[in-house]
């Protein structure tokens, strides 16, 4: 495992000059993932349409210090699978000598929703590629519309906190479990609150022979409405409240990577965010209760999958 000092020396493949918002999780996540590659490794990056793509590739500039392809919104999985197929073919024919890695980045809209079929196909076909979902829980690039990754109760522009319907009515899709059901060699859920966790998982994902999927919680200051300097702290709370557990699935074997020592109520995660402010108005207590129940239930199911004793942390 590299030290922070060593990581500071690596050849950055995602560099400054991009136009992501201050306090956006995407730039941090992408750097952490790509820094898991050695300096002399070659990589081709694919990207779905979304904030990351429009903010980093404004012609004639690019923030990508490596080869990059964006195709459309829903097909980052298929596109990079085609790049990888070309690599396999040309390598087999002796037309390419070097080893090259392949990674696609997509937001939750481009991954959980519109790109799910393309991703599922690429994973099932067994391409040697990594797919990283930067999950900020809504269609942020088009102006904060709900996706199937949006948490229960969140106020978005298509699930507004109204007087009759108080925000999103459905809990989020468990995409990491969906990906694990593809029986691919590696699936992980990680968060930028632990650079070691992201680094380790990205390294494993790049090293396995076959497809790998990583889901990263990537806060959006516009959509979540938090104090931007607090981004990493907020992600830490997401992990501690078990809203975003850290786990990995290696060759079908589930493993929990972090077990909070005490029971931290979900309010700690909801309170600093403007998208949940309405939940703290009188009369909406039942929604917070439902969110907590959902979190606890998923936690117990996860522990069971990981072969751990299914119990909540001590209060």
């Amino acid at each position: 495992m590299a030290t922070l000092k060593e990581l500071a020396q690596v050849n950055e493949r995602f560099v400054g000059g991009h136009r992501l918002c201050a306090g956006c999780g995407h730039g941090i996540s992408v750097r952490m993932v790509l820094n898991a590659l050695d300096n002399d490794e070659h990589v081709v990056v694919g990207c779905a349409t979304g904030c990351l793509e429009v903010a980093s590739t404004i012609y004639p500039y690019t923030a990508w210090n490596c080869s990059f392809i964006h195709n459309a919104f829903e097909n980052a999985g298929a596109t990079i699978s085609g790049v990888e197929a070309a690599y396999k073919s040309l390598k087999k024919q002796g037309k390419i000598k070097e080893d090259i890695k392949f990674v696609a980045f997509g937001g939750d809209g481009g991954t959980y929703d519109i790109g799910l079929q393309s991703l599922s196909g690429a994973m099932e076909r067994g391409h040697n590629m990594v797919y990283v979902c930067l999950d900020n829980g809504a269609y942020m690039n088009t102006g904060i519309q709900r996706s199937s990754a949006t948490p229960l109760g969140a106020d978005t522009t298509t699930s507004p906190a109204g007087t009759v319907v108080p925000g999103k009515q459905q809990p989020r899709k468990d995409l990491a479990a969906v990906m694990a059901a593809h029986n691919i060699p590696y699936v992980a859920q990680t968060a930028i609150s632990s650079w070691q966790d992201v680094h380790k998982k990205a390294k494993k994902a790049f090293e396995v022979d076959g497809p790998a999927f990583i889901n990263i919680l990537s806060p959006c200051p516009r959509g979540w409405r938090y104090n931007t300097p607090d981004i990493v702290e907020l992600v830490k709370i997401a992990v501690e409240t078990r809203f975003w557990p850290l786990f990995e699935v290696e060759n079908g074997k589930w493993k929990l990577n972090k077990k909070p020592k005490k029971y931290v109520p979900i309010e700690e995660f909801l309170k600093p965010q403007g998208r949940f402010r309405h939940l703290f108005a009188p009369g909406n207590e039942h929604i917070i209760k439902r969110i907590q129940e959902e979190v606890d239930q998923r936690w117990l199911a996860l522990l069971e999958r990981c072969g751990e004793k299914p119990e909540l942390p001590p209060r």
Partner: protein
Amino acid sequence: MKNRVALTGNEAVAQAMRQINPDVVAAYPITPSTEVVQMFSSFVNNGKVDTEFVTVESEHSAMSATMGASAAGARAMTCTSSQGLAYMFEVVYVAASMRLPIVFPVANRALSAPINIHCDHSDAMGIKQSGVIQLFSENAQEAYDNMIQAIRIAEHPDVLLPVSVNYDGFITSHALDVLEILDDDTVKEFIGEYHPQEALLNVNEQLSMGNFDMYDYYFEHKYQQVAAMENAKRVIEEVGKEYAKISGRTYGLIEAYKLDDADMAIVVMNSAAGSAKGVCDELRAKGLKVGVLKPRAFRPFPHEAIVDALKGVKAVAVLDRAETFSTLGGPMFADVRTALYDLKADIKVVNYVYGLGGRDLRLEDVEQVYNDLGDIIKTGKVDKFVRYLGLRE
């Protein structure tokens, strides 16, 4: 060496793909082009080609993966029909705009609804303004020949655009035809090795593809596509002439059949052109001055060649195997009539929509069209600009 063989259109196209030996094929089954995918996968699994075959989960991913492969620096192909082409519509535009020289056969079939598996050109007409070059084929021979030439056209440095090779679903795709195929080495030499100018897999350069383009560059990038299409007209003819040297068959932008002294002309693409030529011969034997114009390239639209071929006629009927629902006739009618407008020659141009959903174009129907044109010339009057051929009204 040439081999005379009996093949269906799909078999001829699959053979062309085997001889092209692309680095990557990503495809999905759909009637009536499924056989191409099946035959090609057997070439892959029996070691007849070096291709990495990607069995995608949809046509959208078929084109997306083909694009990824092409951008990576591979010679990459896909193939489809009908709903499949409609489903990949979005990325067909992206492929053309990213200037990826992808060749893809399209066995033409009607679009839903009602669902129908038979031939018309609604699928191809859906992508006519996508920036893709569209070649049309009268029979299996032309489908085969177009496939081989399409590689050279697509990859020409002055073009760099996708090329779709259209041939009629079932009529051409499934009917057995006698044709000549070239030997493998001749094809290999004709298409040459693929050396892309830029490639994602070239580790000595950093390439950024599919960037975000604002109002300060987008317009110029679109205009470059127009210029490439303009160049394609020249390249299609050059490649056609070169192909004649190895095959004995010459190809241009259009085929002008007995038009030199013709008073009346039918403009029609794909298999129906064969029927039109047959009727034309019969009427010629009776002394009527009739001819047929068959566009081989529909995009780019060869308007100069069409005007030149039709400038002496008195009346023209454009036969469209697709509707536009504009109430102003089919897609080719609009283009042909626009092309002829500047001649100021008072050529009467009428439109017949025919054969939707695979309805047969009968020889009597074609004869009726020539009779109608005769009446138009005689009376100097057109009652109806748009008619439906073989429709129960």
